[in-house]
């Protein structure tokens, strides 16, 4: 490990480091997107079963966490937040937002497959437009700044 000197591109950046950043970004982006979809699906499934919770007391809300689907939803939402924080520790905000919004596309497809939410023609158009937007941004390099931003 680390015995070979890093390959450099024309600008003098280490190529191996560039590749590892791209690989890491791809893996963590997939985690951010999928944990968001599973988390939302779990919450949706659970809340449909629990029904509308309306109370000034926190007890019914805490009790609803005992429901397995809601517990799954909450665990995945925590994983989503953690992985999103990790991704933002190196990737641009203007990269992370459009790329992770692919979760809207997957959520719509999961909803159509498992909750029988039939997307309309206009909604399919929206799904396709988001996909094109995400693909455009995926083609850009995730990190365009060096170090910390100004105060």
């Amino acid at each position: 490990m680390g015995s070979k000197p890093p390959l450099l591109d024309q600008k003098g950046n280490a190529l191996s480091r560039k590749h590892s950043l791209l690989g890491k970004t791809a893996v963590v982006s997939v985690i951010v997107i999928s944990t968001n979809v599973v988390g939302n699906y779990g919450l949706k499934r659970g809340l449909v079963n629990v029904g509308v919770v309306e109370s000034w007391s926190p007890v019914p809300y805490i009790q609803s966490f005992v429901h397995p689907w809601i517990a799954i939803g909450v665990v995945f939402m925590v994983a989503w937040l953690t992985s999103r924080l990790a991704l933002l520790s190196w990737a641009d905000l203007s990269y992370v937002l459009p790329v992770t919004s692919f979760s809207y596309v997957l959520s719509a497809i999961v909803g159509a497959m498992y909750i029988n939410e039939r997307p309309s023609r206009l909604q399919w158009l929206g799904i396709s437009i988001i996909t094109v937007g995400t693909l455009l941004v995926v083609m850009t390099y995730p990190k365009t700044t060096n170090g910390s931003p100004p105060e």
Partner: protein
Amino acid sequence: MIALLVTLVVIPGTVGDLLMSAGMKRHGEITDWSAMGLLRLGCDLLRNFHILASIVAMAVSFFAMMALLSATDLSFAVPITASSYILEAALAKYYLKEHVDWRRWVGVSLVAVGIALISI
């Protein structure tokens, strides 16, 4: 009232994302993925002013969204708040000094339009 709620969703949500991104850049690239490393990360973030402020801002945005959803339809609330994607890209360029090229502008705009179409 509705205009105030939309503002309270969009502005704190946008500021929250910018603060979160700035806070994580300040923290630096995460390289330690072990359980101990993630625990240390959690402790570091609880002392990171940008991250704490971003959590407060996002909480305001979240509760304003709940109030907006109880006052209007999903098909109004989601499209109008999807516009914050474009605002965030603009602020990421000027405040976070990110290089937002044409692919990102077009991509972010398409995503905002797509989200609006999905929810109407």
